[in-house]
């Protein structure tokens, strides 16, 4: 068995020390706590910064930002074309309007495949169903498929995949038309 060493009572040394102003002592103690807290905040901030989305790594290599989809006439009415690189679908409505739909299900983020036979997007994860305009036909999806900006210049369709537009319903002005 190990023997415990006897420790000196702490206050023996204290008595020999010069008087310390108690308010100064408590102030310094508080200062230590504040400084310690500051360090903690810094550390937390640093850790969070390390977790932040890595943009440079995401887009390493070719920038994906703007995708050139092709000539307007290439897309038949009431058709949906998948763009793997931009991770979206380009839908051409029956009236000729274009919509760039994100392929990410708004429920939990699965990739929704387009079924040209049924003219529907059916999510394999929880059976959400969307129509060609991305509107929810069948729950549990809480909102229509997200959109990307479509712009048409010189009869060429381009899609800006950098920005995701969330919407609560389909409105006519979301569709983009080629100028006649």
């Amino acid at each position: 068995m190990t023997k415990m060493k006897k420790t000196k009572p702490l206050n023996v040394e204290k008595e020999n020390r010069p008087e310390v102003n108690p308010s100064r002592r408590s102030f310094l103690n508080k200062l230590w706590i504040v400084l310690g807290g500051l360090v903690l905040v810094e550390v937390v901030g640093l850790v969070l910064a390390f977790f932040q989305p890595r943009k440079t790594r995401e887009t390493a290599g070719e920038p994906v930002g703007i995708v050139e989809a092709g000539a307007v006439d290439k897309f038949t009415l009431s058709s949906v074309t998948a763009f793997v690189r931009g991770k979206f679908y380009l839908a051409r409505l029956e009236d000729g309007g274009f919509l760039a739909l994100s392929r990410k299900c708004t429920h939990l983020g699965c990739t929704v495949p387009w079924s040209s036979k049924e003219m529907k997007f059916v999510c394999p994860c929880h059976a959400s169903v969307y129509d060609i305009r991305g509107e929810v036909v069948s729950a549990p999806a809480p909102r229509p498929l997200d959109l990307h900006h479509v712009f048409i210049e010189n009869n060429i369709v381009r899609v800006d995949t950098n920005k995701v537009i969330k919407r609560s319903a389909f409105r006519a002005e979301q569709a983009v038309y080629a100028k006649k």
Partner: protein
Amino acid sequence: MPQQDEIPNRPNLLQRIRYSIFPSTLRTEKAREGYRRLFNSLILHFRPRNVPEDTLRWTLTWGLGGMAVVLVFLLLGTGVLLKFIYQPLPEKAYESILHLQNEVLFGRLIRNIHHWSANALIIVAFLHLLRVFFTGAFHAPRQFNWVIGSGLFLLVLFSNFTGYLLPWDQLAFWAITICTGMLEYMPGIGLWLQALIQGGPEVGPGTLSNFYAIHTVILPVSLLILMPFHFWRIRKVGGLVIPRPPGQGSGGHGQTVPAIPNLLLREIVVALVFIAFMLVFSMLFNAPLGSKANPGLSPNPTKAPWYFMGIQEMLLHFHPIFALFVIPTLMLVALFALPYVDYQVNTAGIWFASMKGRQMTFIAALAALIGTPLAIVADEYLIEVAARLPAIPTWITNGLLPFAVLLAALAVFYIFMQRKYAATNTEAVQMVFVLFLVAFVMLTVTGIWFRGTGMKLGWPWAGGA
């Protein structure tokens, strides 16, 4: 002291090294004995010298805590080995697993042990939690150890979850996609938290390196810090709860016996048998590995890891705000608050609190066992409130309304049982716990085995799941 003079005049190298580590062992038998004792008490620091004989009973603990410790060490050992081979990059992760399985000696076995131990740990830790609950071992003075234990359980869940992504196969990729997708519904901080954890707008390279760091450093270190704390608290309160039959007061603890060998031997037996079992199991069954992750193709059906299937099943019945935020938060708060209810009686050591408690537990379990599948089927085929009332937002028709109905059903059941049994709040809390427990288990079972293509209900043998 006759042995005092036994130091060789010119000790050889080995003797000198030994002397430098244990200075007096060369000198006397007594000193050697002293070192042995010090060594023993250092290693077995978490064990008292004597333990009450009653607590050695197998049916008190079922060896579950010990098994959990064994699994943690199996996981640490195999995990370190895997770390030599595994590469946490999307282009390389899957290939490194293939390399591990096909070219590394015993690579597949090591991965299997890691995989099955991780899954077993969830089950064993959960059963341990149930054992502690049903023997009333969360009552004073063990309240805070329940909190530590619950924290440990969450760490185990997160370890499993973060490890799930690492193989980077279809199974992993989509399970993590939908699980991190669930975060989006957390009000306020959801989107921020999601981007933080994913390390980007979707599951990708950032997610993989985040999960790898969390899985291989942060969580194991946290576990290794919290575990000794958990064990030390057991020793601090004088060991385990002393088992006693219902109705008997908590008297002193009968006979005590030395922990070595009585307790130690039992622990070693449990550990060895369990290790053998895990080894055989890992030799017989391979850890699953799908095809390489393809962000463009969600498999049908896509399922969360099995321990989150209860929550995924709730998603099919409740609006996401309720299924993913309100209900899980309430469950977590209840878990941590459980030992701090002002209980009328301390039932530590009595299985299911009392005879009355046993009956109530049985009825509650039966009610949930029958009620949950009925509610699932009814919701699937009969109830279409949201479709009938399209004008009202779905978070009311699909969230608040069913939630309120469930709470009302719970209240009716509670009042009925209280009228019938006039129970103490100890027994009543236990009843509600059992109700939720069995309901959640039923949801999980439904999610794992009764959900097929398109998450439609179906029999497991119909080839659905």
